[in-house]
């Protein structure tokens, strides 16, 4: 497949076919964008801290700290730090995870970074999701959203599998577009740093960690 159009200086530009996967190491501050050009992509995403991949996306902390199951602007690690920030109005699915096909792709993508099955926690998905009824039952909400922009707040291994949502009765999806370019991490002057007290403390923890190891 042809590469998608990407801005000058892009560090990543790729189409991910239906039932395909991709993976990349991204520097802190890199902006990466997931686009859904045909409207049926479902991007299953995992994030690991590249320097210490035992620190990784924690979906439970991500939903609990932001008090919302359907979306938030911070993707948090199990160490109380910000792995990535998110610009998206359409939110994400933190509840349903992926399918056996998606998991198989995560296993292979992770292996290419020296990571094994023990390194694969629950995942997030973008562009397809579900809602919870008062009795706890789930209903699939189908496609939503055409672009999600994320910013690496720590150096990351990004694993992405593009495959149907586990509750999708059709079990099909369309291609996903991924582009990335160098930019700056969120700083204390950015509105997101102070948008919530919980988020501010997560950015403070991230900054404190980077300062102590000499990379802030």
């Amino acid at each position, binding site marked *: 497949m042809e590469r998608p159009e990407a801005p000058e200086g892009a560090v990543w530009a790729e189409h991910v076919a239906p039932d395909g996967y991709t993976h990349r190491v991204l520097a802190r501050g890199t902006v990466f964008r997931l686009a859904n050009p045909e409207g049926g992509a479902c991007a299953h995403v995992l994030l690991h801290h590249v320097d210490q991949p035992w620190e990784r996306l*924690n979906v439970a902390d991500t939903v*609990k700290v932001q008090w919302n*199951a359907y979306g938030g602007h911070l993707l948090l690690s199990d160490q109380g730090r910000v792995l990535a920030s998110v610009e998206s109005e359409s939110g994400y699915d*933190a*509840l349903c*995870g992926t399918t056996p096909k998606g998991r198989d792709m995560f296993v292979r993508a992770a292996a290419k970074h020296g990571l094994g*099955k*023990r390194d694969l*926690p629950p995942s997030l998905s973008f562009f397809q999701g579900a809602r919870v009824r008062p009795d706890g039952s789930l209903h699939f909400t189908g496609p939503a959203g055409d672009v999600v922009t994320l910013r690496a707040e720590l150096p990351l291994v990004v694993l992405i599998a593009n495959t149907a949502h586990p509750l999708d009765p059709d079990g099909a999806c369309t291609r996903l577009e991924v582009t990335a370019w160098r930019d700056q991490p969120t700083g204390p002057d950015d509105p997101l740093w102070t948008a919530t007290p919980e988020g501010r403390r*997560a950015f403070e923890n991230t900054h404190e960690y980077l300062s102590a190891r000499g990379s802030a």
Partner: protein
Amino acid sequence: MTVVAANAGWSALIGAGQTLTIVDLEGNQAVDFLVYSAADTAERYSAQDTITAQGNIFLTTGSVLMSNERNPLMTVVEDTCGRHDTIGGACSKESNTLRYGHHTRPQHACVENFLAEGAKWGLGKRDLVSNVNWYMNVPVEQDGTLGIVDGISSPGLKVVLRAEVDVIVLVSNCPQVNNPCNGFNPTPVRLEVA
């Protein structure tokens, strides 16, 4: 039969066909719980596979705790409480700093219990994933807002789990004192393998 003191951890190997009973002795006590296949601990409880397999975020009688390989690990065969959480995960010193302030970092937390109990079985940090919270009520409102609310657990309620394969279970009797999940007062629970 074992009484797990308030704030403490516990773990055990439970053979296929055996049951584990968890009794909330004084009520309003969250019990954080992870389960692994004893034959290959890389196969472990998956909250997301459990949720999608049953089409519901709450656990109760009949719920099957599914692994990341989509195999049944344990089945809830009896539940006198009616609703248990799959999405809130465990409290940790690190997440406590976000939710309740940097000053709460020294407080004990479920992840500390999981790490200590897991180490007895060769399990480490990489092996911790989203866990079950027995007796915790985390409703999701229409706009996605999460509640961690009080109110459905009372003294003497029990959950009985049957192992479908040989499993290792890790338990943390939740020490959280900053929200209502333990009624602000962690209390003992009784565990019985039969």
